[in-house]
């Protein structure tokens, strides 16, 4: 049913009927959040700073996976492999070859991006879930390659990475607040970058491939190129996150490269909201703190005999299913629905219900 009239030749009409609903790109609430992030270490103890630093590396990893899964709709189960590659290449560059740590971070990122080309080009030629299978296989191959290249990676014994990075004028220890500022600056850069990416021509190409690849192709988008580009950008950030994680932990071993790690990041996306940068951030925060909350609750409510670790695993699985079935847009999606409800409060056009999967919010 159409309730509008087509105006012919209205091209000459000026843009006066442009609607009032112009999107508000200036999000002033960002400023208190950023300020809060930078002020936070003043109130935190050592463990919390450590946890927040881990969270920062996780956020970058989650945003990286969001660029691939959420924007472009390609499932990857090899995120852990890229995180491992990032940590190892940072370690080799910084520890073995004694390259400046900032450069090493970039080299780590670019190594990941380069490797992603090698997997992406054969497996992204086909439509479907081949990337998921190929990246899963790549996880196992990376694990084996790390063991095989014993001379460089120290094999199964694990590679030690310095927890101190020296950026010219100041030395940052990964347990300190100084490193906190450094890593959160990177987080903010990564978040802003991916937001801008989403707004740009490239980001639009990604989302159009996700929504309808045929239409994207006839609109002049080179599907293979953009899919591979997306995978490379995602891998760059994943490897960067891996390098940072290596610095925080001080060690990387082949055991860290396993599928469960990759799935953990997927859980973050699903819970936070896929296809939205803020969703990935929220998911990372929730999944990092959820174990703490679970153990806090269980200390007060559950008897000691219940095995927490298995329970936690079960809760993660149930969370995925719960969110996919009842709120596929994640926490952020639910939030926008609630927001929309209040915005139009007495005049709600229709019931607030399930809306489209992967719905991009402004």
């Amino acid at each position: 049913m159409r309730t509008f009239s087509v105006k012919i030749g209205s091209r000459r009409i000026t843009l006066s009927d442009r609607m009032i609903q112009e999107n508000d790109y200036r999000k002033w609430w960002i400023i208190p959040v950023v300020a809060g992030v930078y002020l936070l270490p003043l109130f935190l103890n050592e463990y919390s700073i450590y946890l927040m630093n881990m969270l920062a590396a996780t956020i970058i990893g989650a945003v990286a996976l969001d660029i691939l899964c959420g924007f472009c709709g390609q499932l990857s189960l090899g995120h852990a492999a890229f995180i491992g590659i990032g940590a190892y290449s940072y370690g080799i560059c910084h520890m073995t070859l004694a390259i400046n740590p900032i450069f090493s971070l970039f080299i780590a990122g670019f190594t990941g991006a380069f490797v992603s080309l090698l997997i992406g080009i054969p497996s992204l030629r086909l439509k479907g879930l081949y990337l998921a299978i190929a990246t899963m296989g790549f996880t196992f191959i990376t694990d084996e390659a790390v063991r095989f290249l014993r001379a460089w990676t120290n094999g199964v014994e694990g590679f030690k990475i310095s927890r101190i990075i020296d950026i010219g004028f100041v030395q940052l220890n990964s347990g300190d607040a100084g490193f906190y500022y450094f890593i959160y600056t990177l987080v903010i850069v990564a978040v802003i970058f991916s937001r801008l990416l989403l707004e740009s021509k490239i980001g639009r190409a990604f989302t159009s491939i996700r929504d309808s690849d045929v239409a994207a192709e006839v609109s002049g988008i080179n599907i293979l190129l953009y899919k591979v580009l997306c995978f490379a950008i995602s891998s760059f950030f994943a490897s960067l996150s891996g390098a940072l994680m290596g610095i925080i932990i001080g060690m990387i071993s082949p055991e860290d490269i396993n599928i469960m790690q990759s799935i953990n990041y997927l859980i973050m996306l699903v819970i936070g909201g896929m296809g939205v940068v803020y969703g990935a951030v929220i998911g990372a925060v929730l999944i990092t703190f959820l174990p703490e909350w679970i153990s806090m609750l269980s200390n007060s409510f559950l008897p000691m005999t219940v095995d927490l670790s298995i329970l936690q695993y079960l809760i993660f699985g149930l969370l995925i299913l719960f969110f996919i079935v009842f709120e596929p847009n994640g926490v952020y999606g639910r939030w926008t629905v609630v927001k929309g409800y209040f915005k139009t409060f007495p005049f709600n056009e229709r019931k607030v219900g399930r809306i489209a999967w992967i719905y991009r919010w402004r």
Partner: protein
Amino acid sequence: MIIDGLINGIALGCIYALVALGFVLIYKATHVINFAQGEIMMFCSYICYAGSTTFHFNFILSFFFAVIAGFLLGALLERLFIRPLIGYPILPVVIATIGIAMVLQSVAALIWTFEPQKLDPFSGSPYQLWKVSISPVHLWTIIITFILIFLFSLFFRHSLVGIKLRAIAEDLIGSMASGIPVRRMYNFTWGLAGAIGAVAGILVAPVIFIHPHMGSIGLRALPAAVLGSFGSIPGAVVGGIVLGVSETIAGLYLPKEIKDVFPWLLLFLVLLIRPEGIFYTYEQKKV
């Protein structure tokens, strides 16, 4: 040595084939890779184990008990978690199967703990045929797999339900229009995949024992499905056996680092050379 290797490879390949068959069935009907296939397998072999230890059934009874349980489990999972997602893009459904895998794994760990359990119905010393020795497990694996595949081909070719399933795989809208109950068929497909998973699980249990992590063998069968062009049933069988044999032969003659990543290396080789797999049929999205 090579004959021993071949037989081992065929037995291993049969297991891959059964697991891949589970993947392919669901993929054919719904275009979703079910990452919980391995976990369904694990769960069903636990059910068989429980049948023979807790309820003291004999093996044949607990085998069928587990197969029926596998069917019901698959159908139940579809009803609970996959049916609400009909009409969604593929990605969330695939992620939902990962969630199912996690839930099944942790439920199994809560019930039966992490301790590996033994389920060995085919115990006994190996048979000697000519100069080759073949263990009862392998013999039964090969026999049961081939019987199952034979039954399957009969089922798909001649039974009404099988023809309906093929119709759905061919043309969803068309089969909906001609009155095929698509949802019930989806449910049935999941059940069927669960039942196959149960058989695969019971066959693999004597070899790798039952523990909550045995589902990871499911992932190793994925290259077999790719090799046989995802979505082709004979492809899954041939892909599985090719994968099993080549993996064992590679283990015998190639450097020792290769063997356990061989399926994945083969996968990349297939993706590079012939990404459509062996049994590719022309398929074009209608626009």
